[in-house]
């Protein structure tokens, strides 16, 4: 298992049929093994950015480099292996009839032979503490279980980098704490896209604020969250009574 740095430069993107730029000069440098929170209001371009990291949107302008690989059609398959994207709705991510088949889906697409696949599936599920769910059907799992299995489905592809879109949405406080423990235990470079500011503070030493399709602030999470003017400007709000300086 290894981790890779990420470099994004001048990314611009307009959805077909629209004039408004969803991404407008988005730039971000992340060192290998770093865990960075991506904060921003709805419609600021966070999800569009996530889609780019996996080559799910065609690059219109700008450049993305993951490790030593530049994003282009020829490298797409390898980039999708290296970047594990965990989407917001786990029901979108778990589409096979059983947890085992779902975790095996990625490795099977990569051409891993059946004999080795079982070991990979078991290792990924053990890593997220979900080995006991292996023969269950995804729609019978709880929200927290689904999230962990969704993370296992990308870990099975041995990614160098994880991108998580709103990982705490729909989780109860206990599930949220378990997720924090899990993410901190994983060695990969991580981008955590979230509205959940305390969660960002808990697990990410560094945060960037995205607004209008570009990064408008970048710094240690505690400092970013202490800047009330910045938060207000970008429709970000700490929960009532939460004081980041006293955590």
């Amino acid at each position, binding site marked *: 298992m290894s981790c890779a740095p990420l470099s994004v430069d001048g990314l611009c993107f307009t959805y077909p049929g629209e004039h408004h730029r969803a991404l407008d000069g988005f730039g971000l440098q992340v060192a290998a093994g770093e865990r960075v929170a991506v904060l921003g209001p709805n419609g600021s371009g966070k999800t569009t950015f996530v889609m780019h990291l996996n080559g799910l949107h065609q690059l219109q302008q700008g450049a993305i480099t993951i490790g030593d690989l530049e994003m282009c059609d020829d490298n797409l398959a390898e980039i999708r292996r290296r970047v594990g994207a965990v989407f917001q709705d786990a029901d979108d991510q778990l*589409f096979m*009839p059983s947890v085992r088949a779902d975790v095996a*889906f990625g490795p*099977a*697409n990569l051409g891993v032979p059946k004999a080795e696949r079982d070991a990979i599936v078991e290792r990924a599920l053990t890593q997220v503490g979900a080995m006991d769910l292996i023969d*269950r059907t995804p729609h*019978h799992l709880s929200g927290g279980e689904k999230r962990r299995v969704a993370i296992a489905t990308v870990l099975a592809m041995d990614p160098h980098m994880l991108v998580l879109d709103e990982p705490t949405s729909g989780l109860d406080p206990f599930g949220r704490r378990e997720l924090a423990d899990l993410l901190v235990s994983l060695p990969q470079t991580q981008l955590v896209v979230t509205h959940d500011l305390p969660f960002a503070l808990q697990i990410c030493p560094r945060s960037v604020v995205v607004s209008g399709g570009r990064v408008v602030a970048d710094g240690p999470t505690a400092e970013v969250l202490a800047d009330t003017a910045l938060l207000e400007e970008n429709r970000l709000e700490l929960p009532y009574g939460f004081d980041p300086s006293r955590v």
Partner: protein
Amino acid sequence: MGGGHGSSVDRLHLAGDTIIHRLAPHVKIVATFAFVISVAISPRQRVEVFAVAFACVLTLIMVARIPLRVWLARCAVILPFMTMAVLVPFVGGGEQTEVLGVSLSTDGLWAAFNIAAKALIGASASIVLAATTPVTGLLEGFARLRVPRVLISIVAFMIRYLDLLVAQLGRMRTAMVARAHDPRWLWQAKPIASSAGALFVRSYERGERVHQAMLARGYTGVMPDLVEQSRPRSDWWAAIVVPAPVVAVLVLGLL
């Protein structure tokens, strides 16, 4: 992968450990198919064939330990056909027979018997298959029988998302009822029609998101072959034993 859990598709499976439960799914599918076909092609006057087939089905139900109550309740799916069957002797032409003072068409009576017997036996055989095989087992079985992978994927996706769809429909209905929608007449059906449209759009969008999630994990347009090869048992004897009595009686009568 037991039954229960409130999922609509897994509810058909009754967990158990009988010899029928343990048979390989693909063998069970072939056995059921062969049995149903041999019943379906039997001429309607060959009452003894149907008697033997019915006895076979009852035996399977006993061996699989399917409660008779469950079997009868699930047989309710053939009620519409039964209604049809009851009507035929009254409207049929040709030779007439007197039954309890009512003049009925002889040909119609035979047709009614034909429909009723074949529907009951066929449905019962399918009930045995569904009750003793989990859904994933059935998918595995069809894959092993070389049913095209794309068809199996379509069924698997339908099963995976059916419950989400039903739950979504339930929430939309609750939302309508909560705002005092209480349809009693046909002209009040408009909200139902538009909610069906909304459901379609939502499902379509989910389909898009699922496709993106698949692409993100290296999907290239061909579903990988994920059939578990854990049970390379050959239970093929079952595919011969199950339809054998029916075929034997059928053939003996032709000699």
